[in-house]
């Protein structure tokens, strides 16, 4: 244990996380094996297995976000900048989410120049992308497109789908700042915590005068929702 004799809440939280995630990990990996066997035998509950896996993944993302947000509230959101190949981060998220999305027949399109490098916090940005990708499972019809380009002084990572798009209360276009304040809106059923997290991560990336931000729009190249993360 740490040197402080008394257990702080963050110790309790961290150790509970550790146990919970161990269990989630076991559930996840066991399910993965079951799905593997299921695919060989072509059994009919395969789809339900994927649903279970999706929920576990969601739980896990929620836990990570919870801890990150808790720490951010206590302190600043810590960021560990380094120079990364953008494609690596996008590919990792695709590898992570492809089995699930493919199980529903969703096609993933990845478009990113191989020599695009940028300075950002890998695990935080991956967390944002992962979260949005995971959501598309519920909202898109049958396509997801993830792409990255350099637009002037910003790196832009976009995730687009061909679903019904964002509801009006979650749209964030141009300079609106709806997610800066109270992120939780219980009457709409969606807590928007995922977007609040995105907002924190975007804002924690700044380079001199330029600050990171994100946009949620409808339309885009696939006609559904379009999430764009701007990193200076």
């Amino acid at each position, binding site marked *: 244990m740490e*040197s402080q004799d008394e257990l702080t809440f963050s110790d309790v939280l961290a150790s509970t996380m550790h146990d919970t*995630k161990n269990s989630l990990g076991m559930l996840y990996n066991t399910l993965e094996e079951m799905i593997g066997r299921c695919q060989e035998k072509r059994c009919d509950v395969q789809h339900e297995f994927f649903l279970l896996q999706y929920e576990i993944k969601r739980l*896990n993302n929620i836990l990570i976000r919870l801890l990150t947000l808790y720490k951010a509230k206590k302190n*600043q959101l810590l960021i*560990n900048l380094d*120079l990364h*190949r953008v494609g690596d981060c996008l590919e990792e998220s695709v590898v992570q989410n492809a089995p699930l999305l*493919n199980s529903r027949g969703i096609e993933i399109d990845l478009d990113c120049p191989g020599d695009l490098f940028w300075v950002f916090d890998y695990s935080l940005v991956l967390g944002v992308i992962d979260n949005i990708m995971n959501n598309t499972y519920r909202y898109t019809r049958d396509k997801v497109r993830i792409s990255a380009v350099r637009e002037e002084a910003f790196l832009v990572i976009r995730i687009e789908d061909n679903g019904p798009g964002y509801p009006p209360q979650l749209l964030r276009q141009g300079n609106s700042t709806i997610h800066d304040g109270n992120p939780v809106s219980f009457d709409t059923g969606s807590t928007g915590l995922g977007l609040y997290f995105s907002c924190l991560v975007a804002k924690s990336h700044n380079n001199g005068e330029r600050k990171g931000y994100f946009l949620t729009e409808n339309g885009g190249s696939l006609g559904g929702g379009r999430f764009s993360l701007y990193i200076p």
Partner: protein
Amino acid sequence: MTVKVITASKSKQSPNLRGKSILVIDDYGNFRVAVKNMLTFFGVKAIDEAVSGEEAVSKMSDKSYDLVMCDYNLGPGKDGQQVLEEVKYRNYITHSTIFMMITADNSMDKFMGAMEYQPDDYLIKPFTREILEKKVKNLFEKKELLRGVEKAIADGDYERALTMCESEILKKPRNLADFYRLKGEVLFKMGNYEETERFYASIMSMGKLPWAMMGSARVKFATERYEEARDVLEQLIAVNNKVMAAYDFLAVVLKKMGKPLDAQKVLMGAVAISPKEIRRQKELGQLSYDNKDLAIAEKALKAAVRQGKHSCFKSPENFTILANVLIDKGEREEGIAVLKDGNREFHNDREATIQIAMSESMVYTRLDRRDKAKEAIDRAVSIARSQPRKGSANIDVDLAKALILNGDAETGRDILRRLIQNNHEDTEVLDQVKQAFRNLGMEDEGQNLVDTAVDEVITMNNEGARLVREGDLVKAIKYFQKATEILPDNKIINANAAYAHILYMQENKPDTAYLIKVRVYLDRVTRLDKNYKDLPKLRSMYKMLMLG
């Protein structure tokens, strides 16, 4: 490049993982099984497991692994970071081994301690087979690319390292950042400070990268621009207050600026964030003791003592300084008890027990208990004579000086003769001895002692080397066994003894008793000089024999 991913990648085989040897460390059995299943799926055959940090360290000392997957949280005993530090510190793994730290959340990678003790990558639980495969493949690819540059740096061939970095940077490989980072380090090592600084400035124009800011601070420090170095480090901590290496360096800078109180404050801030780094606790203890802040010194040193139990960085000074702190506070009995604890904690460590005995003697002298003081110094001499040296030569020199000053010149000279013979090629040690005599006003006597003692050893080593050269390995083994008994701390004699035994076993067959001897010799060489030039070669020959 456009990649179209339509279905999940079902890689039934991954040829580049097949022949790899892998160690999986976790105290949670189910997790080890799950990881093993994934690795087996990739075709990996050589998978070892360890349930604790201690077991992991012992496995890595005997066998080379291509990949080590270690959970950070390992229950009681060493944690993942301590395992990493120990195996790197003891050279059980080299830069060709990939060390992956497995954690429960994504906050660990924000902590940045000393550069040389960082894992190659972090893996967050839970992870899928696909993610593991992708990460591991990337890491192997990255290691392969870095191999040449790292070798050039290890060889001290900085020109070649620099050329290699520059040509890789043009190719924009996946791990471009690594080549930039290494380029900065190489430029710094070449002493080309102006260019190094320009280089870091160009990197920092892309963003506030911690390693570039650290590098920039290092250049400013080396060129004695302490205030600028301080400003950069303070900025870095403002961006990410978990870059622990920045606090440690900032404390060094502030001390250099003659601001030990500020340095103490910085380290206090650092231990509040990351209390487990015992070298920092020790530094804080020493610094605040010098600053006469006994309360902070006591707290830091007690933490260092408590956490040292599982760490390769535990140190007797934590006990000796703590004892002095307590006695200064008027807590005599507790101070003496701390020294006794230290003695127990280090009962197998020659230098530590000598140091503690000397410190005990001084403490008793301070308390005016002459008989107890004499008893303690006698114990120090007896340990110095009966056990082989493992650590710093300072202790022996200090002990000899204390003896000569207190009228026991014969014992003092004897301890120094032994020290010289065990280190006859180490000019630093020889200079230390000569310096000690010079300080005592006995320069000629010192020179004389060094010359005769060195001659004796050279004759002895040449005889053994001749036997090996002539192929009389049976005789050579006998000869070196005897030589290592006379000079158990001579790294060259120990390395040659190991070499003779290895050659013998290569020509005949591995032999358990000889393997144990080789292990002892090599551990001695490691302890005496972990950068000894032939050590990696000897270790790999030894590991080959262990497999056969």
